[in-house]
């Protein structure tokens, strides 16, 4: 299956993520209090850290959802302060919520997202097979799925969008062992095809085996090997 990012206009030596002393706020609270991180193409970076450390905020910032209040940041060479809209198109985020429509079926959800990027029927079908939501589940309304099945559907929607940077917030949560293996395989393949992945996870062993590098997010800042 072709998981190659749709727009390979970033040279290999330029970092995919380049944050320096980034501050992002939730209301008046500085969830990110000066975070610095550099991620290169093809890496799979694990974000470790306790709840409330700012991992989710970091991912949302990199997705272009939150404004950068202080510091500098470039994602895929695009400036986070001035080019936030452009950043979004090339990034895929799987947050705590799945972004699904409960009243639509699995197939309808994935097809909607696929259609927005012009994916073919074949690509959509492959994405669903890959994540194990074809066959039995495809015509079920999302409302009737288990948490793990919803997660996989959401991942299928992400896969079909062919983003260059994947941001995953606890992707393994709610998945059984075989589903987790499938997910890991999908992620490795995506990274192999040139996507860059940042994963926030409490599954230290599994995510640790998957990732090329790990950093610690503590109280809004990043520690560990930052580039």
């Amino acid at each position: 299956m072709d998981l190659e990012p749709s727009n390979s206009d970033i040279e290999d030596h330029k970092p995919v993520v380049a944050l320096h002393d980034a501050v992002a706020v939730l209301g008046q609270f500085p969830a990110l209090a000066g975070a610095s991180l550099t991620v290169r193409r093809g890496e799979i970076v694990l974000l470790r850290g306790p709840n409330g450390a700012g991992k989710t905020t970091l991912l949302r910032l990199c997705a272009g959802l939150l404004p950068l209040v202080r510091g500098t940041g470039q994602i895929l060479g695009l400036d986070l302060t001035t080019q936030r809209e452009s950043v979004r198109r090339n990034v895929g985020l799987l947050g705590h919520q799945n972004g699904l429509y409960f009243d639509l079926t699995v197939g309808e959800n994935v097809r909607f997202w696929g259609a927005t990027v012009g994916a073919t029927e074949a690509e959509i079908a492959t994405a669903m097979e890959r994540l194990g939501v074809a066959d039995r589940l495809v015509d079920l309304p999302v409302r009737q799925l288990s948490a793990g099945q919803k997660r996989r559907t959401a991942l299928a929607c992400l896969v079909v969008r062919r983003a260059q940077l994947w941001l995953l917030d606890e992707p393994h949560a709610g998945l059984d062992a075989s589903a987790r293996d499938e997910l890991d395989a999908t992620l490795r393949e995506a990274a192999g095809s040139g996507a860059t992945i940042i994963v926030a996870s409490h599954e230290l062993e599994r995510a640790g085996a998957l990732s090329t590098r790990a950093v610690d997010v503590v109280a809004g800042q990043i520690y560990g090997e930052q580039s």
Partner: protein
Amino acid sequence: MSTWRIARLVAVKDLRIEAHSRVLINQVLPFAGVTMVIFAFALDADSVLERVAPGLVWLATMFSLLVLVQRSFAVETDDGALDAMRVAGLDPKAIYLGKAAALSVELLILEVVLLLTAVILYRQTIPLDGVVLLVLTLLTATCGLAAVGTLYGGLASGFKGRETLLPLLTLPAVAPVLIGATRAVESALGTAGAVVSDGWPWVGLLAVFAVAFGVGGSLAFGPLIDE
């Protein structure tokens, strides 16, 4: 992906959700119908009801509009789908136009049902020479209502207290539509001696309103749903 293409996808998606969940048919239409009935309890005079029937139709429409808008955005916030659309970099104009289009379809169905209810409950008759005016009024008023509703619905959806913020913003904004649509329908039905030719200036006003808020809304939607 052109804006129109994405708008069409979003509109079809919304209508598909409605087709599956049947909220309009099962909940909103009965609600509107009940409103028409309790107007009769409150106004307690057949002659009064007949005289104000067009106004009551549009009042019931206004209240139902609030319910429909809340629903339209509830499906987006239930699982973070609107956020997902933002992250995907879908043009907010397209999201706005798509949702407004779907809302328009639902509103039109609602208005037709309410008119028929008025024919039955308030003894209205629809003269043949008023039909064109009636249809044009329905179309232009609906577009204006959908434009305003989608815009403020999007804004309110991101906050607590959205249920009270939405009416506060929407009802004053649709006052011109309420005034114009009621007068135009009175002219079409011949209520209180009005003639069809009186209605055309009102249709003009409704059309200008729809265009003004359609354009303004599509530009404003992006900044209003953004963080």
